[in-house]
């Protein structure tokens, strides 16, 4: 027996939407406002030298430093060096990752061969492989591109593999019944099905690429954002160091934006 609940008798009770708090509410102004407040606080902290500017330069000072680096053009040399490493590593990793992922996802023999290799190499932090890569490929560009490629390859290959495994088998049946062979199924069913997973892999990958490019440039390089940050730190040029960090933040935001746009363009059937 359920215990009778004693509650006061009401004239009328109006039903409320209990899911109200779940609704997505946007506060664009609040985001901007809080960001500005933090910047202002920071500016104040440095201006009044509550923290020595050597440790925490003011945002305005960092901006000024960035501006002069922009005018003299030194900054472009570093950005260009890092970007080209990222781009090459990324391109190689994505194309290899997609190919290998489809291969081991779709065919049983490559799967049997590839899976244990990937399982064994995936957990090794890629930066730990860098010395070996330098030994093999020299201190130049190749070893840096290789370490980025390695780092991006794994999330890509795992994403693509998972994607292939999760392709709706009914769609494959439909394609077969309409006359597709295996090669055509890869092109016309598997590839479009895994596109969202490829983009997810790219988004994961770009974070890793940024991490690895900086690390590799700190180990051995004569240009690049990582190199710039490290030398600035050695010389106690905190403002320059901060400019490096801001560039990295911008790069991350830029790539995310780019991938979002590309995804919209290439996956128009997504709601």
């Amino acid at each position, binding site marked *: 027996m359920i215990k009778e609940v004693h509650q006061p008798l009401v004239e009328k009770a109006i039903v409320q939407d209990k899911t109200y708090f779940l609704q997505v509410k946007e506060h664009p102004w609040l985001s901007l406002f809080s960001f500005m407040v933090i910047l202002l606080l920071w500016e104040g902290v440095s201006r009044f030298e509550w923290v020595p500017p050597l440790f925490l330069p003011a945002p305005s000072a960092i901006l000024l430093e960035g501006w002069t680096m922009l005018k003299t053009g030194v900054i472009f040399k570093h950005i260009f060096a890092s970007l080209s490493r990222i781009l090459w590593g990324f391109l190689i990793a994505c194309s290899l990752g997609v190919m290998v992922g489809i291969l081991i996802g779709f065919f049983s023999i490559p799967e049997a061969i590839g899976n244990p290799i990937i399982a064994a190499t995936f957990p090794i932090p890629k930066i730990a492989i860098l010395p070996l890569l330098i030994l093999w490929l020299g201190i130049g560009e190749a070893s840096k591109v290789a370490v980025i490629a390695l780092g991006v390859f794994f999330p890509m290959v795992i994403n693509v593999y998972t994607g292939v495994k999760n392709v709706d088998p009914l769609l494959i*049946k439909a394609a077969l*019944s309409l*006359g597709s062979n295996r090669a055509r199924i890869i092109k*016309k069913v598997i590839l*479009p*099905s895994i*596109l969202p997973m490829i983009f997810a892999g790219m988004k994961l990958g770009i974070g890793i690429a940024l991490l690895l490019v900086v690390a590799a440039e700190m180990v051995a390089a004569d240009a690049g954002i990582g190199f710039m940050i490290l030398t600035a730190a050695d010389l106690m040029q905190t403002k320059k160091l901060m400019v490096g960090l801001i560039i990295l933040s911008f790069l991350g935001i830029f790539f995310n934006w780019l991938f979002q746009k590309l995804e919209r363009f290439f996956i128009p059937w997504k709601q």
Partner: protein
Amino acid sequence: MRVVIDHISKIYIDRRGERTEALRDIHFSIEENEFVVVVGPSGCGKSTLLNIVAGLLSSTSGQVIFEGARTDSKPHTAVVFQDFALFPWRTVLKNIVYGLEERGVKKEEQFQIAQRYIALVGLQGFENKYPHQLSGGMKQRVSIARALANDPLLLLMDEPFSALDAQTRTLMQYELSRIWEETHKSLLYITHNIQEAVFLGDRVVVLSRRPGTILEIIRIELPRPRGEHLTLEKKYLEYVDAIWSHIKNQAREAMEEEV
């Protein structure tokens, strides 16, 4: 041309080695231009049978033979699935031309054929919509058009309307009846709905509960074209009744077994 389903049996063996006998010695044939409906209780192996005929599953014994057909070793069939199975990345038009692309039909011809079937299923104006922009009934029309455009020797349908609501379902039955009278494709249609079977079929194959065996094959001698008026006729109701009395005991036993 005729399609002979020659003593088909199917036993599923899962990873742990457990055996499920789905079909036992199914034997019947589908004549040219004939509309054959298979009815049977849930789980009796109807989808299994259809997949075997479509070449999407191998039988344990027995075979499916296309007699007197112009074909290679892979006879042309096309399946309309219960869950539509439309390619989400392809528009209506692109879905319909899929099979034609695979057969190397020229672009303009693909387009013309597609237009014809789009008109047949009444989807003009939706050519460039994606599947997610369509209602369930419209999706199934696309799926039917896609199968027909491929000009199969045998069209296969696995409970094509059971994902639809009752009203849409009834309307789609009338639609299919009309479409079939225009095309007269050999058709193997699967359903668990007896009214639907009698309304649509030239012959109805009644399966027992699992393992599916043929209880009876009934020829439906009702005039065509068939429309809404038919469902009130005495003869139609007699057929429905006859099949129901066959299946009733089977369904009851199956239910009692589950409890």
